[in-house]
């Protein structure tokens, strides 16, 4: 019953939203280049179904690859900043400054630096845009660890690494997953940015671009919907992992 309710509410919400959208387009008599209606999208999806699958997959795997890199690198930087005050003071302004650069301006730079390596370019942008929240959350999680937590193990002669593995790491997991939810969305934006700004014939961004060139407005809207679906999918994968690895923190919230 409860599971049914949980699944039913979002589904009903989506149906209501789609109906409202259809109604809005119909009532205003908008042509499809101004606003495509949901009933236009079905044919657009069907017509390009294989392209959607192929491009969707390209967007997906490159986003995930960039995100993985961001997790590894972000965790590493976060650990360095979390454990060393000096490193934190030194790295923080650099990171903030770097994060402040709009990534749209970095896209052409990266594209020039690694001409032709499309997959790598895309992954790199997804990574660059998403590692910041991960690094910050890990470093804050570690540096705000109450000293007593460290002391109970340190007083027994445990090594720094043991303390990290047994206490600091699990204790930081809730913050880490919080950041990962932001990062996964960002990485997705990064991938699409590269695909659209520097078109190289791959990913949903490219499909969007070709829709634009051939003035196929329903296709453009269909790409937007496909992107939303992928984004939701990735987000809930993270939520699912969070439940498994940091589910213990949930009770504390209420």
């Amino acid at each position, binding site marked *: 019953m409860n599971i049914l309710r949980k699944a039913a509410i979002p589904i009903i919400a989506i149906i209501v939203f789609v109906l409202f959208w259809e109604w809005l387009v119909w009532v205003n008599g908008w042509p499809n280049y101004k606003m495509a209606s949901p009933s236009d999208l079905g044919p657009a999806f069907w017509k390009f179904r294989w392209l959607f699958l192929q491009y969707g997959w390209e967007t997906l795997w490159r986003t995930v690859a960039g995100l993985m890199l961001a997790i590894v690198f972000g965790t590493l930087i976060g650990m360095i900043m979390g454990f060393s005050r000096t490193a934190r003071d030194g790295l923080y302004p650099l990171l903030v400054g770097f994060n402040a650069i709009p990534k749209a301006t970095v896209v052409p730079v990266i594209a020039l630096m690694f001409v032709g390596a499309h997959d790598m370019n895309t992954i790199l942008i997804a990574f660059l845009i998403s590692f910041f929240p991960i690094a910050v959350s890990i470093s804050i999680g570690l540096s705000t660890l109450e000293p007593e937590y460290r002391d109970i193990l340190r007083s*027994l*002669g445990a090594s720094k690494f043991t303390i990290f593995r047994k206490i600091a790491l699990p204790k930081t997991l809730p913050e880490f997953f919080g950041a990962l939810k932001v990062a996964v969305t960002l990485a997705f934006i990064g991938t699409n940015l590269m695909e659209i700004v520097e078109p190289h014939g791959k990913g949903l961004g490219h499909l969007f671009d070709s829709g634009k060139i051939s003035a196929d407005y329903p296709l453009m809207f269909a790409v937007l919907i496909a992107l939303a679906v992928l984004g939701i999918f990735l987000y809930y994968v993270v939520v699912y992992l969070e439940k498994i690895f940091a589910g213990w923190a949930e009770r504390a919230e209420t």
Partner: protein
Amino acid sequence: MTDEPQISLRGVTHAYMTDDGPLPVLRDLNITVQKGAFTAVVGPSGCGKSTLTRLIAGLMFPDEGEVRLGGKLVKSPRSTVGMAFQNPVLLEWRSILRNVLLPLEIVANDLSQSQREDRARELLALVGLEGFEEKKPSELSGGMRQRASLCRALVHRPEVLILDEPFGALDAFTREDLWQIMHELRHEEEFTCLLITHDLRESVFLADEVVVLSGRPATTQEVLKVTLGKDRVLDDLYTPEATDMLAHLRHQIQIAQGRGEELAA
């Protein structure tokens, strides 16, 4: 060697480096605790009591003087020490049982997993937490968490138990329950205990000796022998004997706070 005191601090002096220059915290501090004895340390807030526990645990080292455990100079943390703090610092993602088992995962020992669990269960039963082994810390009350934290401090059979205001955050009734439990633990387990506390009644009820520290930089201002018998009940705190000791300690604390003259006037 056998008559070496279990804990011994000789002429311990320590200062913290702060932005405003060095902050002297301990000055020429001497404390001796015999094997199996229970010593309480009281002193004004911020006088350096927690610093003292960190020095004994080998988490930091004094600028001058020496800290010895069982006659040996403390040069690093030792697995023969157990610690508990005001904050029970239980790991929320572990069950109570697995929290108590934590030290046995660090300290070298030749116990099998089932022996370890038996040991942890035995302690948990002793403090009245039987049946809560599989619960998460968030499902327990503050007093119960503190009991679990005591079990964790004792599970590896430390020679020295260091308690830094472990009952400070508990309400009066829970605190008195835990005093009783401390007595029972002392009865069943072998350890030498140094207890930091703000509560004079607690110090008199639990300890064989109460050390009063002066205000910062702290030095040993007074050592009071507690003359109550071994088996104590709460009512003992209301005997004339105990009342005298409490009055004496309260007076010493006031002197330590620098309010001695004010009082005499």
